[in-house]
């Protein structure tokens, strides 16, 4: 895989448009790529993941399915085994329970069980996250669950450029890749606008290698390791704290599998202070894994105990004030950074 280094023209795109652009470019490039899922055709994807693709590529390649996740994910697996490159959308990450067997027992294990003789080059996309009162069954992130189960890469873009570059890399990857996009970063017209969901995106081919974290903001005092929408929140807080003398480094993990442990170690090696922000559940999750990355290497790297800001092991509440109380929002992130920096 090559990273495009040459200077490129850019335009400002929303995350969803950047994601769609990558899919369209790969579909132009490779006949074996197709996209299927619920409401991905005329509707264009509930979260605008396929807007305009039906008109461009037709119903043979942008395929609306029945609400039968087990059947159509399995269909993607079988097609991938036969050398096609399907992109399969599960509308909400929350729905993976109805089809989890196909995901973790089949999609993720066939390559291993076959001793490397069978490849499953498939992308499984799903929308994650809350913050808009959609309740406990429509607001989960669950990326920790997928990252825990071996055999699939798990990528979680936070920015428009990464949404494009990681999607391109995911489609070209010979492994199953789960591509989890947070509704709050997509720049959807019917959701509160996040200023960071519209950014410059390189024209033409743009690849972001899977497994390489991004330093979203350089800083010297405290490392914040995070991903997805929480990157935006962490950057907001970092900008607020900078004039007050707290220089925050923000690491955007970009992918959970593989996890760029080197980037975490390098940053904490510099700052000695760590806050992990994760919109997934607290226990047994990403935040513990990130901290273990440090403590496995050398707990002495940390000059103060690390802190974790995550959903405190509770289903996501419906009522706005309750939901905001459990999500990792600016106030909780700021308090953790201040406590750690102090």
């Amino acid at each position, binding site marked *: 895989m090559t990273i495009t280094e040459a200077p490129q023209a850019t335009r400002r795109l929303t995350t969803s448009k950047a994601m769609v652009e990558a899919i369209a470019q790969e579909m132009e490039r490779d006949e074996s790529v197709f996209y*299927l899922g619920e409401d991905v*055709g005329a509707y264009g994807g509930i979260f605008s993941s396929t807007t305009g693709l039906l008109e461009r590529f037709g*119903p*043979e390649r942008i*395929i*609306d*399915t*029945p609400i*039968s996740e*087990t*059947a*159509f*994910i*399995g*269909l*993607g*697996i*079988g*097609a*991938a*085994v*036969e*050398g*096609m490159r*399907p992109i399969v959308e599960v509308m909400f990450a929350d729905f993976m329970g*109805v089809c989890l*067997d*196909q995901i973790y*027992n*089949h999609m993720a*294990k*066939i*390559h*291993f*069980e*076959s*001793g*490397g*003789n*069978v*490849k499953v*080059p498939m992308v499984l996309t799903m929308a994650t996250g809350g913050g808009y009162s959609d309740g406990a069954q429509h607001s989960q992130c669950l990326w920790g669950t997928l990252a825990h189960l*071996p*055999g699939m*890469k798990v990528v979680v873009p936070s920015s428009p450029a990464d949404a494009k570059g990681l999607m391109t890399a995911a489609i070209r990857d*010979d*492994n199953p890749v789960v591509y989890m996009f947070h509704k709050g970063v997509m720049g959807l017209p019917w959701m509160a606008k996040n200023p960071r969901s519209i950014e410059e995106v390189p024209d033409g081919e743009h690849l972001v290698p899977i497994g390489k974290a991004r330093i979203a903001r350089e800083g010297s005092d405290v490392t914040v390791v995070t991903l997805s929408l929480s990157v935006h929140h962490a950057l907001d807080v970092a900008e607020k704290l900078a004039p007050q003398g707290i220089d925050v480094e923000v690491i955007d993990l970009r992918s959970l599998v593989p996890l760029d442990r080197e980037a975490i170690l390098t940053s904490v090696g510099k700052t000695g202070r760590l806050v992990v922000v994760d919109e997934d559940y607290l226990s047994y999750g990403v935040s513990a894994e990130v901290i273990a990355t440090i403590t496995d290497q050398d707990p002495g790297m940390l000059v103060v105990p690390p802190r974790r800001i995550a959903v405190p092991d509770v289903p996501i509440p419906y009522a706005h004030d309750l939901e905001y109380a459990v999500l990792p929002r600016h106030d909780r992130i700021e308090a953790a950074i201040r406590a750690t920096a102090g």
Partner: protein
Amino acid sequence: MTTEASPSTTPTMPTARTSPEAPELSPATRTQLYETMVLSRTYEEAILREYHADKGPGFDIGKGLVPGEMHLSAGQEPVAAGVCAHLSADDAVTATHRPHHLAIAHGVDLRKMTAEIFGREGGLGRGRGGHMHLFDPATHFSCSGIIAEGYPPALGQAFAFRRRGTDRIAVAVTGEGAANQGGFHESLNLAARWSLPVVFVVEDNDWGISVPRDVATAIGSNADRASAYGIPGERIEDNDVEAVHAAAGRAVARARAGEGPSLIEVHTLRLWGHFEGDAQGYRSDLDEVPGRDPIPAYEARLREAGLLDDARIAEIKDDASSRVEDAIQFAKSSPIPDPTTATDYVFA
């Protein structure tokens, strides 16, 4: 996709309760069906022998040259032989946790399959899969240890075959217990709606581990369920390889012609336990089971037709034995995987 089939024009297909008369098969085909069944049975008898050879003292499931659960398909050979006779290595088969007869009938390499069952480096999956997880890209064969979950991937294989403009098909096999799973119904609906070239096969051996079909399933014939999806359904009652061959011939031809999927249920026989070590204390039909063994019955029929005699039968059985013993020797001499490679092959 959506342009390829229209629900309003899809006729509701009748379910055949009794199979139409089977066309007369050529002597070569009849002998071949017998040979396939004999090879499968010979294979499983040898696996049985090796499996139990070193499980003692007592019975320790994790011990021995062949460790773990072992589900043998003795009694179900007519399904595999009858269906796979219509397939080439270009066609796909997805089997169940009881896969050996189907793998053998579909032409999976006997040596590599055996080495996999023995957990050896020379196995289909280099010892990572085991007997419930056989993957052979050469014959597009795979199986799954999870009930009904082999059906959905078959849809994708069929989709890919058609997308490439071929007449290749996928055959998806489950047991009768799987017909109560969501994956079964989702797959029938989707395959029917998209007219995918799939043949769905249900092996009704009467038992979902210890629970009889009558206790688990609301209707007597899972073939009737095909009508709910507008596709042909056919139940074969007598575990006869020629009846299976005939029904599969119709379903395969329909799939290859682009007319969509069909469902075949065969009332077959689980001759032995659900797994080796299963005492079958729950089983009410054990007295009559040996008399229902389909292989001696077919052998007698072919003798009567003048196609087999003692010498030919001995020849077929000897040939099967030498192939099986060769495979077992291959497996035993294949290296045990290096423990330091246990984490290999998670990613490509």
